[in-house]
C-alpha cells in the first residue's frame, strides 16, 4: 500500500519540480542522502544498484571533504593491509578498513594506496573514484541549511532547503553528515584554548613550548606525537585515563600508531598524562610584562595550597582535542532527532534499525550512527558502518518496496558447513562484532539464512526483514570478544580448550539458540555485557590464533553437537554404505542420509576411507567375515575369554 502511495507521490513531486531551478525551485526524490562522505556514498551505491530514485547532497565540491582537513596530521590510522596471504575477497575485507563495498572487484582502496597507514588525501581521491566508476548521483555545492518534517499523504517526509533556496522533498531522508562540530567544554578561560581544527601542523611552531592538550583520544595523541620533538613539555589532560585500543579492542580508543607519548611519559622525559574533570579547570593568561593583576591571585591557584600540584607550571599553549559532535542545528524542531543517551549526547538518538527516534523515515548512517555501538564496536568507522549501511538498505527495501531481506535456503544437513564458511570469511560479522549477526530461521528440514542483521533489532525481525517466523526457533551467529579479564599480553590470555571456549578473550564466533524470538523486554534485560538475551542454549567456538575455525576436533565437532542439541537430531555424516544399511533397517534414517543418500546424492567414499572408519569402530565391518554368521559373537567371546584368563592367572601360578 505504502509503496504505491510513494510512487504516485514521487511522480507528482517530480512533475512539480521540473524546469525550475531558480528561487523556490523544488526537487523531489524518494531518497535523499545528506552528505557525500563514505557512509553517504555507500548508501548511494546500494540505492543505485537497486535502481531507486535518490540524490546525494553534498555542500562541498567533492566527496569526503572531512578528510581534506582531518586528521590534521594527515595520517589515516585505518589499516590498509594489502597482503593477507589469501585470495578470498570477503576475507580480505576483514583487513581492509578503508574500502567501500561494491560489486566491482577492483574498486578497492589498495588501488589508491599501498601504505598500511595511508595519507589522508588518498581517501577523498578514493571516494571520487568510487563515485565516478559507479556513476553515483551526487549533487555538489548543495549546502542544506534547514530540514523540516512534512506530511506526504499521511507519511512523514522531509523538506530540505539549501543555501540557494532550492528545496528537496524527500520521502526518506538518509542522514550521513558525519561529525563536524568540534566538541567544546565551558570553563573559565576556555576562550584561550586553541582547537584541534585550527592548530598549526608545523612542529616548529611549538618549539620549546610547554603544551597542555585537553583530551586523551587519538587526535590528542596524534597532535602530541607530531610536536614531540619540538615541544618542551606535553601534558594531556582529560577526565578518563587512556584507553588503549589494543586492550579494549575498540578502534576508537588510543591506537598504538599514535602512542609514542606513552613512552616519553613512562620514561620520565617531561611528558605526562593527568586525569581530571574539564569543567573543573581554569586557564588564565599571565601577562609577561607584569600587567595589571586580574581576578586570579596566588591563593586561587592549586599550587598555592598543594605544593606538589601536578599542573603547577605554566603552559605556552593549551590545545583542545576533544572530538566532534553531530550538527543538530540544521534540523528544524519538527525534524530534529533527540540526543543520544550515550556518547555524552554528541550523537543523534536512533532505533536499533538506525531510524531517528521519533523521526519516521529518517535514517542516520555512518559515524553519526555510532551511538548504537559507541565504545563497543566499529559502527563509527568506515570498516564498520559500510556493513550497517548495507543492513539499513535491506531494511529500506523491505519497508518501502516489499522486498524481503535476502535469505539463502539451506537443507539442515548443509547448515554446519554454511556456518563454518561464514565464520571463516564473513567480514561484516568480523568488523561489526556484537552488533551485526547472522540469523538462521529454522524451518524443520531446512532453514533460511539471513546475513548481518542488526542484533538489537532482533525482536522486530519479522517486520524489518519480511521473513515470516515459524515455531521452529532460530539461531543467531555473532562474533564477540570475550570477558577480557586477563592481562592483554600476559599469560593465559588465550584459551585453546574448546570446552572452555566461553572464556575466550579474543574475537570468536558465538551461536545463540532461541525457541522463540526474543521480545523487546528480553532484549532490555539481557545479561550485562551481552549482545543478546540469555538464550535456550549457547555455543562458543573457541578463539583461534589464526582466526581459522576449521579444525575437526576443536571447532567442527563441537559446533555439530551444538546444532544437534538445538535441532534434536543426529547431524553426523555417513557414507553411502552406512546409509544403505540404515535406510533398510530403520524407518527414518539419520538426516544426512535422508537429505543426501536418499536424494541420490550419497557420499560413497572409497575402501581406503572405509578402512579408516572401520578401524575407528564407526562403520560396521562385514568384510572380515570368514565363516558366515558367527564371527562377531566368536570374536566377542574370545575377547572376554581373554579377560577371564588374565584374571584367573592371579590364582594359580
Amino acid at each position, binding site marked *: 500500500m505504502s509503496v504505491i502511495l510513494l510512487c504516485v507521490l514521487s511522480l507528482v513531486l517530480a512533475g512539480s519540480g521540473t524546469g525550475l531551478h531558480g528561487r523556490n525551485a523544488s526537487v523531489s526524490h524518494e531518497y535523499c542522502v545528506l552528505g557525500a562522505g563514505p557512509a553517504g556514498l555507500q548508501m548511494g551505491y546500494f540505492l543505485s544498484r537497486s535502481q531507486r530514485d535518490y540524490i546525494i547532497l553534498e555542500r562541498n565540491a567533492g566527496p569526503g571533504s572531512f578528510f581534506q582537513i582531518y586528521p590534521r596530521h594527515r595520517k589515516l590510522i585505518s589499516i590498509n593491509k594489502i597482503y593477507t596471504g589469501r585470495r578470498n575477497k570477503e576475507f580480505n575485507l576483514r583487513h581492509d578498513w578503508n574500502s567501500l563495498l561494491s560489486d566491482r572487484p577492483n574498486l578497492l582502496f589498495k588501488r589508491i594506496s599501498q601504505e598500511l597507514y595511508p595519507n589522508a588525501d588518498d581517501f577523498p581521491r578514493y571516494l571520487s573514484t568510487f563515485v565516478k566508476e559507479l556513476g553515483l548521483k551526487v549533487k555538489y555545492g548543495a549546502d542544506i541549511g534547514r530540514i523540516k518534517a512534512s506530511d506526504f499523504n499521511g507519511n512523514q517526509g522531509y523538506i530540505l532547503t539549501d543555501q540557494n533556496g532550492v528545496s528537496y522533498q524527500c520521502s526518506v531522508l538518509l542522514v550521513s553528515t558525519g561529525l563536524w562540530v568540534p566538541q567544546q567544554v565551558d570553563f573559565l578561560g576556555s576562550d584561550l584554548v586553541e582547537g584541534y581544527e585550527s592548530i598549526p601542523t608545523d612542529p616548529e611552531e611549538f618549539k620549546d613550548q610547554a603544551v597542555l592538550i585537553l583530551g586523551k583520544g587519538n587526535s590528542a595523541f596524534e597532535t602530541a606525537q607530531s610536536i614531540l620533538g619540538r615541544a618542551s613539555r606535553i601534558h594531556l589532560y582529560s577526565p578518563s585515563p587512556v584507553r588503549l585500543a589494543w586492550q579494549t579492542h575498540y578502534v576508537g580508543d588510543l591506537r598504538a600508531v599514535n602512542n609514542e607519548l606513552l613512552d616519553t611519559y613512562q620514561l620520565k622525559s617531561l611528558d605526562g598524562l593527568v586525569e581530571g574533570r574539564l569543567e573543573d579547570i581554569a586557564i588564565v593568561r599571565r601577562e609577561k610584562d607584569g600587567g595589571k593583576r586580574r581576578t586570579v591571585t596566588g591563593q586561587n591557584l592549586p599550587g598555592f595550597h598543594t605544593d606538589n600540584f601536578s599542573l603547577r607550571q605554566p603552559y605556552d599553549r593549551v590545545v583542545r582535542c576533544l572530538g566532534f559532535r553531530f550538527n543538530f542545528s540544521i534540523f528544524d524542531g519538527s525534524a530534529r532527532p533527540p540526543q543520544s543517551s550515550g556518547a555524552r549526547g554528541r550523537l543523534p538518538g536512533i532505533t536499533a534499525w538506525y531510524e531517528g527516534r521519533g523521526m519516521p523515515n529518517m535514517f542516520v548512517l555512518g559515524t553519526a550512527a555510532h551511538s548504537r555501538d559507541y565504545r563497543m564496536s566499529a559502527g563509527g568507522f568506515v570498516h564498520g558502518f559500510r556493513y550497517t549501511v548495507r543492513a539499513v538498505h535491506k531494511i529500506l527495501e523491505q519497508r518501502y518496496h516489499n522486498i524481503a531481506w535476502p535469505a539463502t535456503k539451506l537443507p539442515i544437513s548443509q547448515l554446519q558447513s554454511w556456518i563454518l564458511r561464514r565464520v571463516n570469511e564473513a567480514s561484516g560479522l568480523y568488523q561489526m562484532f556484537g552488533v551485526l549477526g547472522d540469523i538462521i530461521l529454522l524451518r524443520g528440514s531446512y532453514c533460511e539464512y539471513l546475513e548481518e542483521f542488526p542484533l538489537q533489532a532482533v525482536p522486530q525481525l519479522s517486520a524489518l526483514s519480511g521473513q515470516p517466523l515459524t515455531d521452529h526457533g532460530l539461531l543467531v551467529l555473532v562474533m564477540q570478544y570475550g570477558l577480557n579479564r586477563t592481562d592483554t599480553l600476559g599469560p593465559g590470555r588465550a584459551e585453546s580448550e574448546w570446552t572452555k571456549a566461553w572464556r575466550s578473550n579474543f574475537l570468536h564466533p558465538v551461536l545463540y539458540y532461541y525457541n522463540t524470538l526474543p521480545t523487546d523486554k528480553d532484549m532490555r534485560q539481557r545479561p550485562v555485557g551481552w549482545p543478546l538475551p540469555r538464550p535456550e542454549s549457547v555455543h562458543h567456538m573457541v578463539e583461534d590464533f589464526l582466526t581459522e575455525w576449521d579444525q575437526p576436533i576443536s571447532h567442527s565437532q563441537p559446533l555439530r553437537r551444538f546444532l544437534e542439541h538445538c535441532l534434536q537430531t543426529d547431524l553426523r555424516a*555417513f557414507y553411502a554404505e552406512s546409509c544403505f544399511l540404515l535406510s533398510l533397517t530403520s524407518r527414518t534414517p539419520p538426516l544426512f542420509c535422508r537429505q543426501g543418500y536418499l536424494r541420490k546424492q550419497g557420499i560413497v567414499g572409497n575402501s581406503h576411507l572405509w578402512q579408516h572408519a572401520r578401524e575407528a569402530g564407526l562403520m560396521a565391518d562385514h568384510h572380515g567375515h570368514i565363516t558366515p554368521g558367527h564371527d562377531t559373537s566368536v570374536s566377542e567371546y574370545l575377547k572376554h575369554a581373554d579377560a577371564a584368563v588374565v584374571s584367573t592367572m592371579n590364582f594359580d601360578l
Partner: protein
Amino acid sequence: MCIVYLIAFLFSLTSEQCSSKLIEDSSQSFMERMHTGKTSFIYFGNHVNPTIKLFMEQLEMSADALQDYGISVVKVNCSEDAIANYCTGEKLMTKAYLFRGSEVLRSFDIDTVFDVNAIVSHVLFSVLFNEVRYVHTPAELLRVESAAKQNSDIVVGHIPVLGLPEHRALMEAAFVYGTKYQFVQTTGTLVLKHMGVVDPSSSQAWLWFLHCKGVSRRSDPCPSIPMRKPLNTINIHTFLQLMEAPLVTEAVLDPSDVDVVHMHLGVPVLYLFSQLQTQQLDWATAQTLALQLRGEVGVVVIHRDGPNVKTSLKYNAAYRLPQEDVKYFTLNSAEGVVKLFKEELLQEHKFEDEEEDEEHWSDLDILDDEVSESVYRDRDLMLDLESVIELTSDTFQITVTQNDITVVLFYFKWDAVCMAFIQSYIEVADALEGMNGVKLAAVNCGEWTDICSDHNVTSFPTVLIYRPMAAAQLYKGMLGTKSLHRFILLSLVSNPYLLSSSAEVMSFLEGDLYSKHMYLTPVRVLGLFSSTHDMGVTSFEEAARLLRGETILGLFAHKEAEQWVEGLSVNLPALLVSRSPGVPYEVYSLPSSSPTDLVSLIKQVELDRFPELTVENLPWYLELGKPLLLLFIGKEDSTESMKALAEIKQLLSSGQLDSFLPCWIHLGRTPVGRSILEKYLGFVPPLPVLVMSRLKTGEEVFLFPPERPLMAKNILQWIHDVENGQEQPAGLIPDGKWGPPVPFFDFLAIMDQEAPTYAAQRAPKMKTGGREDHREQKHGTPNQRQTPHPSPNPQAPRQHSEL
C-alpha cells in the same frame, strides 16, 4: 562354615594380646601352627628391601583385618629359622602362602597381594572358594539362578579388577552373608551386558541382588535390583538390609510416626495414603512403585481410616528424606513419583554421575562421525591434485569454455564430506586423464568464495558440468567414483540421438550403436513420434538434455515409427525401452507433458522390476514406497540362489507381486547386506533367504521359513499368511529417532556454575545498558591516575563492552 571361623576368631581374640596382630613364627611355633588346623596366611622372608618393607607394612595391616575372620597372618624370618620347603628356592621372598593346618590352600605372588585390600580379598576369596561362585558367561549365571530359585536369593558382584577395595568389600560381605545368600563373582563384560549395563567397557564395579527365593514359578526369571551406590562394605550391608525389608509396609499411623527400617538406613521413604474404597488399586500402585524404587526408596501404605492418621485429605502421598521432615504432595501418576525421586530427590547419585560425565567429556575429543574421522586420519596425506585443475577467479571462465565438457567440483577444505569426495573425484580424474574434450577441475570455495557465490553454489560438495554455450548442469548422482565416472562418459553422448531409419533404430535398441557404452548402462530409451512436427518432440528433446549423463535416449520422429508399435496396445507418440540386447522391449505411451514430467516418467520406466539392490541404486527403489520382498543370496552364485531368483521372476511376470517391490541383494557384491540380515533377524541363516520388510507401513520383518523350499507357490502362500497375520514376525525395524548422539555440552550451565550472574538476565527495574556506567566513569575525581584494572568479576562490565 563362617560360623566356625567366627568362633575361631573369638578364640584368637583371647589368645592374642600384643598390639600388632602380625605374628612372627619360629620353626617351633610354625610346626605347632601346622597342627592346629587353623587358617593362616604366611610369608617367608630372609631380608628386607624397600619393596618388601612396603609389603610388610601392608601385611601388618592385613593381620588386623583378617583377624576378624579368624585367619592369622604370620611372617617367618628364614634367616633365623630356615623352614624346609618354604625358606629355600627362588620363590622365597616373592611368595606368600595360605595354609589350612599343614595344607597349602593357595600360594600368592606378592605382586598379586600388593596391599591390604588385595591380601584380604584374595585370602577371603580362596577361603570362600566353595561358597562364592565364579561365573564368566550369562549361561553360567542362569545355571546358578535356576539352582537358587525358590531356595535362596543371589548377590552378584561384578569386579573389574581383582584385589581392589571393591573386591575386598564383596568378599567381606560374602563372608558375613555367605550362608544366607548365594554369592556370585564375575569379572568379564559378558555378564554386564546380560544384566543390562549400558556401557560395559567402563571399569566400574557392580552389585545386583536377584530375588530368586520368592519367584512363584521356576520358569520365572529372578527380579534383579542393581545397587546404585559405590561398592563398599557399608553400602553393601545397607543394600542387603533393604533387599530384606518388605517390599511394601502397611501402617495405620501418621507418616511421621511410622517406623521402618529404611529410616535407619538413611534411605528416603515414600508414604501412600490408601482409602477403603480403593484399597486394591492403591495396593497395586504401591507394589509397582516399590518395585521400581526398590533399593533406593522404602514404600509405606498408610490406611486413612486409622484413627491416628491425621493427614489432610488434599494430599494422597508424602515422602521423607533422611534427617528431614515429612513433605506432603499429591500424586498424579506413578511415573511422576518415580521421576521425582530419580531426578530430584536422589540427587546425590546425580552428583556421582556428573563426576563420571567429567571423564566422559574427554571422550568428546574423539571424532564420532565416520566421514570426519576417516578424513582426519588422512590428515598427513597430501592429496595429489595433479589430474585436477585448481581454478581461480582468473582462470575459471577460460577453462570452462575451453573443453567440450568441464566438470567442476566446488569444495571446502575443512568440510569432511568434501574431502572424502575429493578422493573419489581424483580417482575419476585419473581414470579420464588424457581423454579428449573432458577436463576435471575444482574450486576451493574457502578461497574463491566469489566464484562459488556467483554460481549459486549453496551446497557442498557440488559438481557442475560446463559445456561451451550452455548453462551449467548440476550433477545429481551419487558422489562416488563409479557414478561420476559413468555420468561423465555418458554425458559425452549426444542426447537424444536422432535416428533416421528403422535400421538405425534397431542398431540403437540392440546396443550396436554406442556399444562401448554398453558396460555403463545397457538400457536404451527411444522416443517414437510420427513426425518431427509432433508437438511432443521439443519437449522430449529438452527432457533428453536434462537426462544427459544419466540415460541414453534415442529419438525417432519418422513416418516409419508407426511400425515399431504395430500390434502393441499403444499409439504414437510412444516410449520404447530396451533393457538389454535380446530382451523384449517394453512400450509405454508418451503423454504430452512438460520436459520435467517427461524426465520423471523416463526415470520411472527405466527402473528394473526385479532389481539387485546395491548401495548406489537403493534410493531409486525406496522412493516407490512399496514393501520389500528381499532375497539375500550368497557370494557364490549357487544353483539354489539362481532357482530362487527364477521363482520370484516367475511370480513377478504373472503379476502376483504388484503390491511389492521384489528385489535381491548379493552379499558378495554388497557385503553390508549381511549386517542388514543381522539387524532384521539377529543372525544370518543359511542363504538364500527371503525376507519381507515393510519399511514404510510397519515395523515387522518376516522371514520365509528356511525349511520350506523357495518355490513360487510356497512364496505366494507365505505372503498370504503374512498378510493374514498368520506368520510371526522374525524381527522388528525400530522407528528410532536419530537424536543427538552425545549428551549436550551445556556452556550456559557451566557459566551459571562458574560465574553465577554472568549469563543471567537483568532484573526488570535496572536501567538498560551500561551507559549509566559511562557517566560514572566520566565523573572521576581529578588527579586520580590509576589505570583501569581488569575486573575480576565477570558481571562487572568492561568499560568498552557495554551498549
